[in-house]
């Protein structure tokens, strides 16, 4: 299972990549494995508000529906449109092509409460 060193993580299994004042968000390799085949992703619209630790969308596998939680607060700057036609990209490439939203952060201090790769690995280890 991949847990890239350069990302931050949430306890709900989202990852965050920082690009300047923008946070790119997706779900982790562990999350996509637990979900199984992802068949539908519901995402917000560009311009919507994102709030830390609050659902921003939904990911559905064949038999399950799970909320997606925003790691940080801000404004939705972009959504991955490719997922609306092929949600399975989330399984194939959770950290790259399977990204979900980009958030223009309003409070970068929130990044401090996210997990580093080692802490996330520990969290996942407990759940395994």
């Amino acid at each position, binding site marked *: 299972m991949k847990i890239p060193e350069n990302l931050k993580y949430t306890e709900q299994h989202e990852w965050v990549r920082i690009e300047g004042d923008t946070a790119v968000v997706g779900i982790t390799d562990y999350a996509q494995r637990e979900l199984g085949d992802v068949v539908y992703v519901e995402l917000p619209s560009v311009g919507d508000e994102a709030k830390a630790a609050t659902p921003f969308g939904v990911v559905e596998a*064949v*038999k399950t*529906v799970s909320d997606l939680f925003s790691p940080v607060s801000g404004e939705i700057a972009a959504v991955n449109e490719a997922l609306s036609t092929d949600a399975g990209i989330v399984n194939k490439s959770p950290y790259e092509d399977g990204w979900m939203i980009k958030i223009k952060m309003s409070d970068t201090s929130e990044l401090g409460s996210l997990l580093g790769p080692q802490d996330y690995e520990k969290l996942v280890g407990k759940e395994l």
Partner: protein
Amino acid sequence: MPRETPLAQKHRELGARFVEFAGWLMPVQYSGLVEEHTAVREAAGIFDVSHMGEIWFRGPGAIDAADGLVTNDISSLRSGQVLYTTMCTERGGIVDDFLAYRVGDEVLFVLNASNTEKGFRWIRSHTEKEAHVEDLSEKTVQVALQGPRAEDVLKKAGMAELLSLPHNGHVSIEIEGLQVLASRTGYTGEDGFELYHDTRDSDRLWNLLFEAGRGFGLKPVGLGARDTLRFEMGYCLYGNDIDESTTPFEAGLGWTVKLQKKKFLGREFLVRQKQEGVRRKLVGLEMLENAIPRTGYPVTSGGKEIGRVTSGTFSPSLKKGLAMAYLPVEASKPGTEVTVLVRGKEHRASVTKLPFYRRGSRK
């Protein structure tokens, strides 16, 4: 603590994920739901369904006792035949739906796991004292082999004699010293077999079939894919699509109700309902928009709730959101457009004929 089937260790070795279902710890998934589902549609799958309940009617009066409990006609069943039936309350509510086997002068009911205890109590309290009814669920392993390559697997496993079974036929055979009751039945829409044997022989039949299936793409299949496979066929799942508040006529199971039978539980009510007609019907719904209907989601028309989804999922074979729901008769005609509320938002859907999936290999 949930019970385990005699095959639990096998499932662990195969990397299964487990779920508690009806008091049993059952494999829900091995390699992945879609992969398992597809294996059954295109090759073959093997299922442990030992959680099902096996109730035997024996001794004098066994046939009559069994026949008086169910809506379908067991008295005209010949030995070696199986039929699907419902068992109803006086009010026509479905107590359980299951396969009934005529084995010589005995009858076997294979009850849903979630209903085995309730069903057995129901049967005991509604049969004459002289009829001998026995619950052998704890002593029975049930394995299902399903898919277009099921015959190939059986041939390879040295069980070619089963290939001559017609659909809904059964026979008792001996394989490597193992006594097996085998029927050409299933819950997937594919050709396939369901096999029963004593728990003493725990995993021998499973191993035999598993080894034989290696060259044919056989995969172990969990309850997850079992549900999507039955759903695509529009087969009812007890507790979701049918229960004691629904009748066979409402559920589209009128073909299992033989009103010409003089006597069976629920007959009076069902005769009346047949005359008066039902007010709601279980229908298939096909989403016309990109959304997945789930159990419990409201079905609306003109902004008003007209029903609820009883089973709904993304269909792995048809690659879209599908559902079953009870709708008022006026809204139950194929082609009728309704909406399903998904997280508070209306999404268009169309009433469609069942089964959803029509390319199965079932014979």
